[in-house]
């Protein structure tokens, strides 16, 4: 994996987000489902981290937790934390790229408490450190769509069928770039005059009915139109960036008039509109045709490199993730079982589950005949006992696997959660040499 010479190698780039011991449980008729049960991983600036696992392993819930989009009934308030270190535009080069920011155009925001010198709040990193799970709603809202963005699996469902493309994309600018809109419209955002206040409230989408009525009258009307046009310009630019042909025409359309690929481009445009530090992509190509998939993946890669955005790419398709992600985290039954460089994991998987996944991929190196499937099914995660969740399907399980939870531990260049690599103090440890099936 080669990185451009001016950028720091991705594997040692500073961490932009860090998931620590995330636990998300759900109330259900049968009991409490431990959908995500102790997940840890880091996302580094500018890298693509793949999050792989079969349906029901908790990867979507993990992804949604970043922006607190997990519905809280039936969800139960989580434990753990998701640490986020936002970036800001590099003041030396104004985002163009220079030695100060190592060519990325972005620097880490300094910690407001210690102004970058290092303190407890920022865990001695000097960077502004936010726990996404505990910050107040208002702060979270300023991060959503702005510093952290998300694209969803089915663009047909993720776009509001009743609103035009223009309205939906413009929302992001109104929410996070209202001052810029005002300036583009020739209005001074700092002024406290009545017309400016009304227009500013319009730009931030806070206008009440009476205000809207006032804004439709001639003196303020031109201001209102100017703001709309400023927004439209930005929408067109954002759409053009995702290679949507004829953006101005597409803007006026409604979601159902667009193809799946186009809709997903719109979603991507919305997500990258404010140049976020982190993009969460929840199976962005699963709902698309195969031919379109490839193009969308290419697009995401290209835009990611241009914006230097970190991406968490979620998928159930291991071979796809291999092509897309620098590093990969394999998830099973609510836990991470293996994390490391994508190519390395693919060539030398260290966890039995990962091995099974890779073996199951129909490929040239298999002879014609049976497909190698992993026996068994994902266990129900209701009030689980301490045990390795994969034990029932593992070819190498030993007695200790049934009584203790393995945790992630380092194995050469990566981390693996398995007793084969980290034998317990007591009890019989499993080994790759001893198959039990």
């Amino acid at each position: 994996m080669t990185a451009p010479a001016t950028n720091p190698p991705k594997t040692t780039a500073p961490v932009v987000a860090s998931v620590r011991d995330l636990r998300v449980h759900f109330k259900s008729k049968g009991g409490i489902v431990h959908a995500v049960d102790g997940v840890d991983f880091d996302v580094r600036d500018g890298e693509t981290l793949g999050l792989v696992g079969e349906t029901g392993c908790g990867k979507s819930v993990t992804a949604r937790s970043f922006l607190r989009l997990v519905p809280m009934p039936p969800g139960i308030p989580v434990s753990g934390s998701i640490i986020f270190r936002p970036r800001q535009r590099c003041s030396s080069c104004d985002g163009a790229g220079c030695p100060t920011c190592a060519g990325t155009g972005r620097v880490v925001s300094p910690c407001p408490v210690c102004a970058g010198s290092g303190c407890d709040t920022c865990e001695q990193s000097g960077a502004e450190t936010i726990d996404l799970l505990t910050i107040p709603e208002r702060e979270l809202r300023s991060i959503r769509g702005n510093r952290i963005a998300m694209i969803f699996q089915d663009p047909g469902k993720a776009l509001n069928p009743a609103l035009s493309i223009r309205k939906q994309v413009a929302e992001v600018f109104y929410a996070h770039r209202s001052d810029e809109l005002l300036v583009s419209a020739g209005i001074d955002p700092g002024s406290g005059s009545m017309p400016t206040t009304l227009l500013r409230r319009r730009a931030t989408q806070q206008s009440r009915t009476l205000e809207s009525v006032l804004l439709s009258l001639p003196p303020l009307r031109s201001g209102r139109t100017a703001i709309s046009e400023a927004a439209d310009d930005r929408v067109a630019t954002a759409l053009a960036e995702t290679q949507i042909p004829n953006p101005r025409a597409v803007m006026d359309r409604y979601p159902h008039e667009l193809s799946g690929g186009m809709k997903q481009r719109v979603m991507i445009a919305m997500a990258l509109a404010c140049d976020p530090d982190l993009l969460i992509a929840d199976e962005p190509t699963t709902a698309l045709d195969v031919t379109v998939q490839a193009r969308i993946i290419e697009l995401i890669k290209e835009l990611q490199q241009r914006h230097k955005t970190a991406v968490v790419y979620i998928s159930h398709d291991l071979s796809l993730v291999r092509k897309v992600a620098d590093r990969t985290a394999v998830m099973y039954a609510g836990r991470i079982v293996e994390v490391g460089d994508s190519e390395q994991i693919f060539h030398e998987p260290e966890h039995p589950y990962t091995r099974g996944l890779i073996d199951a991929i129909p490929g040239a190196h298999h002879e014609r005949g049976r497909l190698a499937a992993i026996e068994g099914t994902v266990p129900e995660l209701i009030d689980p006992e301490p045990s390795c969740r994969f034990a029932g399907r593992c070819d190498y399980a030993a007695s200790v696997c049934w009584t203790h939870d393995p945790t992630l531990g380092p194995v050469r260049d990566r981390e693996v959660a398995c007793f084969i690599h980290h034998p317990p103090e007591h009890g019989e440890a499993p080994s790759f040499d001893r198959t039990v099936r």
Partner: protein
Amino acid sequence: MQIRDYILRRLIVLPFLIVGVSIIVFGLTRIGGSPVAIYLSHEMSSEEVAEIEARYHLDEPVPVQYAYWARGVFEGDLGWSGVAAAPVTAVFPNKLAATMELAVASAVVAVSLGIGLGTFAGARRNKLPDHITRIISISGAAMPLFWFAIVMLIVFWVYLGWFPIGRSTPEIFASIAHPTGLYTVDSLLAGNFTAFRDSVWHLVLPALTLGYGATAIIARMMRSSLVEELQEEYVDAARAKGLAERLVLRRHARRNALMPTVTVIGLSFGFLLQGTIVAEIIFRWPGLGRWMADSVLRGDRATIMAYVLFTSVLFLVVNLVVDVVYAYLDRRVVLGS
């Protein structure tokens, strides 16, 4: 364009339906006794009876009678109302205005309360406001208007004395001109605040009572559509963009939840229309409904016919409008059955 075809199709069918209704209505008048019974009295001689019957074409075959009647309707002659002792068309406008005032006030109450309550409850699913709304909705659909109105009267008029009965205080009503026939509008036009207050004060109780049933069904539909919409992915996607919850609710969820609610609003119009009959009886409101009720009791066929014809046409037109509005709102809808 599809919507245009749809409207066209409905418009073409409309007159046929109206003709069909008129046939039924006409048929009704020929059932059960002489249609001119109200104009006869015991003292008349048989020649006088025969003369009256000839005047109303009762000696001709039935289809011809229908033709006479239909032509009369087109020319604006809806017959003579025994109850009002005047031609139907002369009395109709004033009574229509009174009923319209009541119906519109009730509709305003029902739509605003219904949507408001439904949204409020839908956004707070399974919490207290939701349960209260659900009780209101369920009781609203089963509520006999005549009983509810009487109870409201007993509580608010007899015991609490907060609101008056009837449409107006006679002296105040007589003190202003009535260009439109709508008491509220006329008093505003005359700049007479006392009259306006009088008109509103008399409207409150009947409008709230009549609107209750419609409020219930609208709130119920609004609540359930909102709950459904809130589970859709685009709502989460909107939140992920950093929009305030209020905006997500208003612009995204509610906008889509309003669509099925619009059809219910149309349905509740029929509800309101029929409710005016009972409401006007109980609240002593001088409108079409009470006139119809009196006509029913005294066999005033002309009024009955006119009323059924009028309300059916109104009903058909409103349903058409509602369906078109719905089709316009939901561009994805496949129009036609």
